[in-house]
């Protein structure tokens, strides 16, 4: 039987969790750990060493997000097969062109503040999106030249919709 290994990444740390015949090992160190059954599939309850942790999770294809003891965590969990797949994919990604600036929430584009061809800096305001009656400025996460503007003033956008492409 193949060893059951999961990689859990949180912020800049990664933990390797291995399920072996004689127990659970985290980064090679044995750790008494077991799941406690719950009625709610999205409610994780586990005994880890001498603590019972219980927290509901939001899981999508990319990440697991959850609040535990008043702190928020965003984690990526992969098994070995997924890890191999991902490393192959990301090797190909380098050739992709341009950075996209996306709408961070659903709302209305009040004003696009750049034009095609503008040279912009990291942190510069790109567009103003109104949501819940508040104006929110969307800023560039990196610098470059504006290559394409995909929205116009007054347009409704979904979360994640591309506003502007920078090269």
């Amino acid at each position, binding site marked *: 039987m193949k060893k059951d290994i999961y990689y859990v990444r949180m912020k800049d740390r990664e933990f390797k969790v291995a399920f072996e015949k004689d127990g659970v090992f985290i980064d090679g160190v044995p750790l008494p750990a077991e799941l406690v059954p719950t009625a709610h599939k*999205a409610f994780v309850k586990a005994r880890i060493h001498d603590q019972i942790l219980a927290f509901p999770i939001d899981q999508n294809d990319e990440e697991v997000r959850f609040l535990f003891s008043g702190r928020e965590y965003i984690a990526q969990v992969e098994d070995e097969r997924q890890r191999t797949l991902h490393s192959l994919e990301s090797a190909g990604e380098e050739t992709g062109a341009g950075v996209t600036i996306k709408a961070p929430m659903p709302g209305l584009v009040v004003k696009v503040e750049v034009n095609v061809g503008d040279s912009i800096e990291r942190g510069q305001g790109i567009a103003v999106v109104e949501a819940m009656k508040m104006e929110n400025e969307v800023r560039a996460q990196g610098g470059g030249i504006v290559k394409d503007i995909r929205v116009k003033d007054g347009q409704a956008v979904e979360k994640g919709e591309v506003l502007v492409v920078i090269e």
Partner: protein
Amino acid sequence: MFRKILVANRGEIAIRVMRTCREMGIRSVAIYSEADRTALHPQMADEAYLIGPAPATESYLDFKRVLDAAKKSGAEAIHPGYGFLAENADFVRAVQEADLVFVGPPAQAMQAMGSKTEARRLMKSAGVPIIPGTQQALASTSKAKEAAAKIGYPVLLKAALGGGGKGMRIVEKEEDIERAFSAAAREAKGAFGDDNIYLEKLLPGPRHIEFQILADKHGHVIHLGERECSIQRRHQKVIEETPSVALTPELRRDMGNAAVKAAKACGYVNAGTVECMLDANGNYYFLEMNTRLQVEHPVTEMVTGIDLVKWQLRIAAGEKLTLKQEHIAPRGHAIEARIYAEDVTSGFLPATGFVNFLRVPSGPGIREDSGIAEGSEISRHYDPMISKLVAWGETRDEAVRRLARALREYRIAGVPTTIPFCLFVIEHPRFSSGDFDTRLVDEELHREFMEVPANPEIERSVAAALALAVKQNGSRTNNQRMKTESSTSGWKWSGRRDGIEK
């Protein structure tokens, strides 16, 4: 007393008002939009009327639909909560024309205080200190520049009909004023339907202190002490508490008297709040009066023991304020955390979604005023505040520790919330010290929060728990389930005989 009242609001404040109604033996009537068909507040009422589509302008803000529901239900009075129609003097008049009672101040007082510029004029003549600045709206950017030059930068541009930080811009130097002016005006227009902007001197490091007022129709006015609301993120209150560590008994008495004077100056009736700025030298200035119940009213209720909504209803029904100023004896300390559906890790962006899991804290000293339940949808149409968590303690330290304990107990999934940020703030040494002002969050805590170091030991345990769960459930649990089940496709309107939703 009324036998039935309509609550012209939604979410936590509608539920909070309905709870007092039930305790007083008053039937409560909810109104709800199509987006709120599955919401909690219609369930909590004795009656509920669908009044229109999701956009507030076609439902919660639509005079006619609200009044139609009131008439259909036979309600005798309307409680507006806060937001929506709560500070709309035209609505107050419309309510009275419909022979209903508005639970709040007279239209005149509301209008006077609703216009920040008029309020400033009124306060000045009543002898209540105001912040240096204009008492008129600014006709143009050049007028703004002129006024700013006169009182000196930095200045604050504010919507004359504003509130809640909307339509407000800080201007540090002249070259920024034009852009700020148009942005503030645009936001003000969108939020309040009026783009009048005035200008105030930006006080360096003020605290935001407000006084709770109760005034009856017979000329009795008292205050119920202060609330410290200096913990704000982009002019939005995050944490509120009472008493304020910044007030001496003398200052409290002086400011309280000024607040009562302010209420009297505009002929105020019902519950209201006089907001002040307090500078580092102990000088205070009238900021504005909120002519309604305040979001943070529970902290006052917890230390005074007084149910403010009960008094709102009694006063609206014409009863005399039997509470005397000398009977108000606050006990202990209370603190509130506003819980918003916001993505704190991506810069506090409003979040939408379904509350897939919810388990709220309780126990000694904890009060939760919530607007949601498991399964609730947080839609983009309304304010993202989902709950208020309030803690009482014998001392400030006990209240803060209780709130922290309760924030840690909170279990919620489906939408990210501001819980981590609230916890970070109240456990920060700057907050504990009491030595802070309205700049603390924006200038220090926000950035620090983003850089909170990891806790490897807890993360190790959490990682192991996650790996176990993923191993058992597969790499994707089905969070979409709820959305599907709650979707409107499941709706079957079988009742065709009721008129109001046509």
